[in-house]
């Protein structure tokens, strides 16, 4: 009888530990996503200001600017799921990247200290977003591993935990953001 109770006790303990670790991982993902959200919002706040400042100079890039504004307003809509936010963020990052590249052709723009300050702030926010994405991806990978690996996958199945989508880290992002180069071209 005693061995039976010992086995039961150990099994219960293992189940509790697995359950708690899965909940911990799930909460960590939510927690870090809140951090991602905060920096994304910082970028949303900066965009109108940036668009308004460069609009006058960048006649030929009107379409990109419009796209950025449009993406921003759709990202600001309430009730978006995390996965949708992840997808929109990738588009917005690309569009903003093409603005900074297009700026190369406008020496006047680079001479404007206010705009350069905005770009610096944008770069800083991009770097923060990149950090937040990497943190989120690590948390999601931990959770996804637990959902797929034995024996936590059985528990995760009962708890109906779903795999989450990772942020895509672009090759460009892996390289160092170099604003200095941007200044040097002027």
């Amino acid at each position, binding site marked *: 009888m005693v061995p039976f109770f010992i086995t039961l006790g150990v099994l219960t303990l293992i189940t509790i530990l697995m359950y708690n670790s899965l909940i911990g991982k799930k909460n960590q993902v939510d927690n*870090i996503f809140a*951090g*991602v959200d905060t*920096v994304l919002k910082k970028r949303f706040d900066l965009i109108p200001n940036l668009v308004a400042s460069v609009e006058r100079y960048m006649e030929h890039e009107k379409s990109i600017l419009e796209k950025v504004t449009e993406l921003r307003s759709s990202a600001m809509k309430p009730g978006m799921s995390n996965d949708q936010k992840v997808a929109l963020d990738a588009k917005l990052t690309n569009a903003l990247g093409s603005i900074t590249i297009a700026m190369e052709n406008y020496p006047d723009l680079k001479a404007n200290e206010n705009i350069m*300050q905005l770009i*610096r*702030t944008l*770069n*800083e926010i991009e*770097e*923060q977003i*990149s*950090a*937040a994405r*990497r*943190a989120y*991806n*690590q*948390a999601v990978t931990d959770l996804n591993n637990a959902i797929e690996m034995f024996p936590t996958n059985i528990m995760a199945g009962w708890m109906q935990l779903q795999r989450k989508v990772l942020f895509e*880290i672009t090759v460009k992002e*892996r*390289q*160092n*953001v*170099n*604003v*200095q180069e941007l200044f040097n071209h002027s």
Partner: protein
Amino acid sequence: MKSISELTDFYYKELYPALSELEETRNKILSKLKWYGGMGGVVFLLIIIWLHKNFALFHPFMIGIASGFVLLSGIVYRSITSHYAQDFKVKIITPLISAIDTNLRYSPDAMISQYLFERSNLFQHSIDRYSGNDYVKGSIDGVPVEFSDVHAEYQTTNSKRGTEWHTLFRGLFLVAEFNKYFKSKTIILPDIAEKTFGNLIGGWLQSMNVSRDKVIQLDDPEFEKRFVVYGNDPIEARYILSHAMMQRLLEFQRKLSYPLCISFVQNHIHVAIATEKDLFEPTVLKSLLGYSQAMEYVNTLRNTIGIIEELKLNEKLWSKE
């Protein structure tokens, strides 16, 4: 900032008069040491032979006499050479540091404050004795920086052996302003556990370290192999440790033959390199004019101050003023 070859030129050309003066002093000291050494040896032997009539060679009294002699020789050596060491620091190291950057000030007897050392959070043991020397403070490319030799120790009391001193850290300690704002603490230590016990057990052992914050797993496999990162904010830790920064730290560690510990606290980077020796202590046994000796001083200085350049702390890319 001057390159190593420029500094070597400066060392041999500009400092030559001071070097030859010091070389003369060194030779005098050497012959003095030989004279004292010879005399001391003879006196010691005579005393031992005389005492040997009454005591066995390894009698505690004899051992006491021998230890006394060793102690005395140490004191005599120090008193003869201390002036030389002081002269070397004033006449060679001071101009060498100004040559690297005129914004740097050198104080041979001062050290980085214990407050900064403890703020780094790199060493968790309480410190019972704190000393150091060769303090350099100033700014490089507008980045405030300070560094010095540090020797931090703690003591333990044991009923058998009494009080014992243990070295917590001995080596070079540097603090510089970081070019990004952050509020969290991020500690980077050499990855000993994973190296010894492998990924799985080592990683588990690290996560069990309750005295530290949570382990932060980073997305650079090579960096992960070399270092373990603890921090209280996973997002900010990655903000500081961008992919480029991780590569730079790896590159820096590769050049060093000593363990490297780094922490990011209160907008500052703290770097501890456990060299286990003093930075600029000249030995009278080697000539200052010798190339290897000269290169050692020039390299140590250039590489230490070069940390700012190497880690690109002087890049003002961000909105931080």
